[in-house]
């Protein structure tokens, strides 16, 4: 065994030319003494050549490679899981909504509520086929159960295209209501504004407020002040009140302050004036909602004697300051 160890050390040291002269002659002696030793020497030599060849593999890491593969496999699994979970979530939510409605229906009422965030617009079709376009920052509630009446409550602006089916359709807003059978009309009733407006495009509607009924004819617009009892009826170009449903706003000789009020909701920004006189400038033109906001302010600067400053805020609405040029 001792000899064995010595022989191995002599053979391997020889591979690296690390034997002294004495050691080298000792190795030669041992190799010549036994055929077995020589055979061992030969096989260690070929082993050595092979070891040197494995140098090619030293640049690779099996662990690193596997970690990358595993990460990818897990990522794909997670993606697939999320994909399935997405549908599962939809099913669960619709199931919950379903049971919610069912429970309410059993009690006799079931109010659905649609809220449109600022800067967004939505279009929906009610059970009876009536189409409703809801403008930015509006909320619509409707009773999905009632059989002999169709009742909706509006906060904000909506355009209604009511399907005629024999039962009255009522829109409640603020302290008034519009009663119709089947027509197209627009209602503006934002809480933060002191007036509401109903504009009739076609058909016939009744405005019911404080137990007085007022009839409106096509192209007529009624303006209701929150504070006063009196109401005003004007003939208007109804295009403006329809066009927003198509993503555009047509202004004909409109005061800038009224234009900016719309823009504030539409683009979810805050618009301020540095001088009162600027508010009363008149603006004519069509604004397309799908156009970026900066294009619109550029147009203002081009058409009106104003200077516009845009402040981007991270945690609150962006601010637009309009001043005299």
């Amino acid at each position, binding site marked *: 065994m001792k000899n064995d*160890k010595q022989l*191995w*050390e002599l*053979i*391997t*040291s020889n591979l*690296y030319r*690390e034997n002294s002269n004495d050691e080298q002659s000792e190795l030669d002696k041992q190799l010549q003494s036994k055929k077995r030793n020589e055979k061992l020497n030969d*096989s*260690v030599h070929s*082993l*050595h050549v*092979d*070891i*040197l*060849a*494995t*140098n*090619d*593999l*030293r*640049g*690779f*890491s*099996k662990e*690193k*490679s*596997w970690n*990358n*593969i*595993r990460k*990818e*496999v897990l990522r*794909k699994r997670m993606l697939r899981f999320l994909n399935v979970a997405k549908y599962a979530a939809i099913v669960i939510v619709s199931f919950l909504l379903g049971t919610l409605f069912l429970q309410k229906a059993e009690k006799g009422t079931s109010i659905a509520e649609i809220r449109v965030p600022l800067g967004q617009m939505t279009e929906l079709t009610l059970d009876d086929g009536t189409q409703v376009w809801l403008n930015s920052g509006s909320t619509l509630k409707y009773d999905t159960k009632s059989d002999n009446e169709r009742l909706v409550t509006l906060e904000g602006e909506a355009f209604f295209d009511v399907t005629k089916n024999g039962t009255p359709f009522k829109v409640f807003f603020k302290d008034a209501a519009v009663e119709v059978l089947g027509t197209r009309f627009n209602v503006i009733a934002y809480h933060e504004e002191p007036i509401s407006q109903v504009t009739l495009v076609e058909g016939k509607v009744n405005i019911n407020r404080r137990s007085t009924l007022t009839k409106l004819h096509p192209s007529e617009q009624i303006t209701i002040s929150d504070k006063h009892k009196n109401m005003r009826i004007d003939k208007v170009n109804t295009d403006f009140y329809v066009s927003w449903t198509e993503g555009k706003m047509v202004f004909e000789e409109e005061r800038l302050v009224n234009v900016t009020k719309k823009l504030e909701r539409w683009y979810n920004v805050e618009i301020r004036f540095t001088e009162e006189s600027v508010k009363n400038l008149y603006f004519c033109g069509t604004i397309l909602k799908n156009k970026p906001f900066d294009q619109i302010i550029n147009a203002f600067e081009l058409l009106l004697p104003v200077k516009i400053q845009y402040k981007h805020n991270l945690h609150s609405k962006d601010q637009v300051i309009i001043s005299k040029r």
Partner: protein
Amino acid sequence: MKESELWKNVHRGDVDALKILHGKYFFSMCLWAKDAVADDELVERVVSDCFIALWENRKRIQLRSSIKSYLFQMLRNKLIDVYRSRDLTTQYVNELPDVCLEEQVDLKQHYVKLYETILLLPEQRRKILEMAAFEGMTYNEIAEKMHISKNTVKTQIARAYRFLKENLDPGDFYLFCILHKK
């Protein structure tokens, strides 16, 4: 576990089976690809990609021959893609060895086995061997670097070779045992 069994498990979605396959062929695929692409990092990525692709497409893959030749064929195709994407001359592609020649792969397998056995050496011994064999350091230099005597270096080198020889000779049942214990 048999190859066919292993593939069946991968096919079924068993990540551990994929890991075994990877462990089995990673080095030989790298070595084989290294003949075509000199960049180790790129080779490793391409080889890793083969296993990722195998996993992703496992449901669709119909093996006509062995999983081994499928992997190498995939590797070959991916290397060709690498050449094309880098807009390198495709001349070399034609020189890529044909994978159908299993001996080509098995020849590499011999070095892989040796290298994996080197990795089984105790860490210090392996380091000493690597310094001598791959970094061309003398026994004295190694001794100094490792804070050991020259004599210890000599002993460690001898033991390393002995370990490798004993574990690689035909009928290497011992190696079989330790590899599977790991």
